C-alpha cells in the first residue's frame, strides 16, 4: 500500500453479551448459512481461542519432548505421541527389556513438570515407558490415526 494512501478503516459488527438471546445468521463463501444466538457465537469464539492456545502449547510440548528424548539417546529406542482416554500419551519404548528405575524417575518428573506448568494448561498428558518389545505390543497403545512418531 502506498504510504500516502490512508489505511482502510475496519468496520465491526458488534455483538454484545447483553444481546445473548438475539439470533444471528452467518453466511460462508459457499453460501451455507449458520444461525446461532449471540451467546453461542461468543462460546464459539472462546472455543476458537482455546484451539489457538492449544496449538501453540502443543508445538511447545513437541519441542520439550524432543529435547527430553535427545538427552537420552542411549536409553530410548522409539517414542510416540498419541491419544489416550481424554488426553495425550507420550509413549517411550526403551532399548532394554529390563526395568530402568532411573529412566522411570525422570519420566515421572517430566510428567509432573508438564502437568503443573501453566504454559501447558490446555495439555492433558500421560507418560508411559514400555520395555523393548515387539511392534504388536507397543502398537496396541497407539491410536492409529492420531500417532506421531519422534
Amino acid at each position, binding site marked *: 500500500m502506498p504510504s500516502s494512501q490512508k489505511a482502510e478503516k475496519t468496520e465491526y459488527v458488534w455483538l454484545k453479551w447483553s444481546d445473548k438471546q438475539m439470533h444471528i445468521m452467518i453466511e460462508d463463501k459457499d453460501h451455507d448459512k449458520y444461525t446461532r444466538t449471540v451467546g453461542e457465537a461468543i462460546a464459539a469464539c472462546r472455543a476458537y481461542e482455546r484451539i489457538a492456545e492449544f496449538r501453540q502449547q502443543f508445538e511447545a510440548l513437541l519441542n520439550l519432548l524432543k529435547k527430553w528424548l535427545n538427552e537420552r539417546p542411549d536409553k530410548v529406542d522409539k517414542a510416540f505421541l498419541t491419544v489416550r482416554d481424554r488426553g495425550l500419551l507420550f509413549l517411550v519404548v526403551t532399548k532394554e527389556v529390563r526395568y530402568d528405575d532411573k529412566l*522411570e524417575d525422570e519420566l515421572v518428573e517430566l510428567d509432573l513438570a508438564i502437568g503443573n506448568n501453566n504454559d501447558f494448561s490446555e495439555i492433558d498428558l500421560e507418560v508411559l515407558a514400555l520395555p523393548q518389545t515387539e511392534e504388536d505390543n507397543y502398537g496396541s497403545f497407539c491410536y492409529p490415526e492420531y500417532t506421531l512418531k519422534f
Partner: protein
Amino acid sequence: MPNEVQHIQWALHNLDVIVYLLAEPTYCDWTATVSFYTALHIVDAVLFAQETSPDRRHGFSHDQRRRTLKKSAKYQELYRYYHKLHKHSEVSRYLKLSHGKAMFFQQYMTWEEVKSVLLRQQLTPLMLEAAKLLGEQSANDLKDATASLAKSCN
C-alpha cells in the same frame, strides 16, 4: 460407592493375595497386577478422606484419578509411586511374547526385583505416604500391613 474404610479393607485383602503369591516365585506378573490394584484402593481411600466435593470422593476414572494426583502438591509423592505401579501392571497385563506373558514380565523384572523394587521401594512407601493422609484407624491398618509385607518379602 465404597468409603475410606472399605477401600482400605479391599487394599488389605489384596495385600493378603500378594503375601500368598510371594510364596511362589512364578507369579511376578500377578504380583505386579495385584500391587497396582492395592495402590488404587489406597489412593481412592486417600481421595475419599481428603476431597470434599461428593463427585471427587466417589467414582474416579483412571484418567480423573491421575489428573487429581498430579495437580495437587499434597498428592505428588503418592503419584510418583502410583504411576510406577500402574506402569508395571500395564506391562504385566498387556505385553507378551510368543512364549507367554509371565516369561516376559520376568525378563522385565526379576522375582528379586519384584520384592526389592516393586514391593519395598514403591508399594511400601506409597502405603506410608497414604497413611499420612488417612484417618487414624486406616493409617494404623496400613502401617501394620507394611510390616507384614516387609516380613513376607524377606
